[in-house]
């Protein structure tokens, strides 16, 4: 196991993503952050806190569960559903930023786009991830990336948040065959 992003680097990456989001959207008024549970939701909360500290205004932030829209449901035992919470202004005509911890095949994001489409019609949809590990299976690209991490498909990326795991870290583990 090797540490790819220790806590201070992880904090810097999240701060940079927050600045980039503000720059690209000319402030925080038009944006709605939607984290994909579990860890994407924690990342979204971190980014929202950062943006609020920079911009001085509360940010629209919520969660979006994509389980019911997954294309691999049939291949695994049923998963528990996670909460979806849409902030007060909704998604209609907003700049929605989907937030997830790791971008891998792109299938989660495809499912998130479907789930989002059921809720409303955002003005734009952008994507922020902490780690982009490559190996895309769909034509999906992140707008904001904390760190590009070249991996082999069998390796496992482990993202830890203090709220859940007691520490902040991104590490790379050798997976089984």
């Amino acid at each position, binding site marked *: 196991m090797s540490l790819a992003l220790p806590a201070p680097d992880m904090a810097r990456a999240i701060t940079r993503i927050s600045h980039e989001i503000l720059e690209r959207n000319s402030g925080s008024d038009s944006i709605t952050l939607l984290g994909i549970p579990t860890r994407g939701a924690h990342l979204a909360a971190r980014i929202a806190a950062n943006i609020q500290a920079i911009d001085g205004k509360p940010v629209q932030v919520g969660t979006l569960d994509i389980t*019911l*829209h997954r294309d691999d*449901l049939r291949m*695994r*035992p*049923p998963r*528990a559903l*996670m909460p979806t919470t849409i902030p007060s202004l909704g998604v209609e005509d907003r700049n929605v930023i989907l937030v997830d911890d790791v971008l891998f095949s792109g299938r989660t994001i495809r499912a998130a786009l479907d789930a989002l489409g059921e809720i*409303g019609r955002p003005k734009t949809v952008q994507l922020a991830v902490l780690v982009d590990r490559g190996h895309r299976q769909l034509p999906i690209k992140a707008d904001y990336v904390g760190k590009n991490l070249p991996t082999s498909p069998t390796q496992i990326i482990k993202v830890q948040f203090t709220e859940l795991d007691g520490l902040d870290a991104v590490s790379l583990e050798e997976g089984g065959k």
Partner: protein
Amino acid sequence: MRHLLSIADLSKVEALQILNTAEELARVSDGPMKKLPTLRGRTIVNLFAEDSTRTRISFEAAAKRLSADVINFSAKGSSVSKGESLKDTAQTLQAMGADAVIIRHSASGAAQRLADSQWMTGSVINAGDGTHEHPSQALLDAFTIRKHLAHGGDDLTGLHIAIVGDVLHSRVARSNVLLLTKLGAQVTLVAPPTLLPVGVESWPVKVSYDFDSVIATVDAVMMLRIQLERMTELFFPNAREYSRYFGLNKDRLAQMKPTAIVMHPGPMNRGLEITADSADSARSVILEQVTNGVSVRMAILYMLLAGSQEIGASE
């Protein structure tokens, strides 16, 4: 989980998982888009060999909101009324590629028979078998009770629920006794001795013949329908006497705790086990039970059909 035949087969964890899933799905039902793609391409057969309004429609609505294809099949107007056996019916459904069969039958154990047989490979969901069980009704009742009375708690610990009336013929009562006690509630059955089943003393419940001594202590009262169609002999002298001793009326309503709720699985015999003003009072959650039924049945279909059977069965 492959089939849902009886509450007795469910662990507490599985039951809570269904309730929690239903809670998330209820939010979808409240939203602008009610349809989800989750069960697209799955075929679900409603095999109803006994009359039903809400259970059949509720399962149908649940399946359709998850984008499954639904085939409705009732005994009347099908080959069952020509004398076709359950086996031949099941094999026909298998040949048509049914992924799940929701069965209601007047014979206790019909769902179990269908699941144990090699007649079909799909999931079997018991929607009421004779006087045995009606698990989806118990789950929606527990869901409704939890929503109103558990104050954010996970299970029903500390709640006292009275189930009143025709316990003898009631599959709803059997499933509810199993589920509510599994979830930590205390259950009291209230009925005349003639309408209590043999062996009730071995159930994990209290039994009372006196509704008035119980009514003030309960958090929820679940009224059961007097099942005249199953009664082959006389169980009480007359309807007026039954309703005076065991019916829910304005006076009994007034004795209930301020927060207590009134439930009924439907269909109601207004004026017999429940008066019209009780059924329509502010305490009544009877229509909400119907709404919750769709979410709970969506959760059941999701748990049984969305995942892979192969891995799910090996747990």
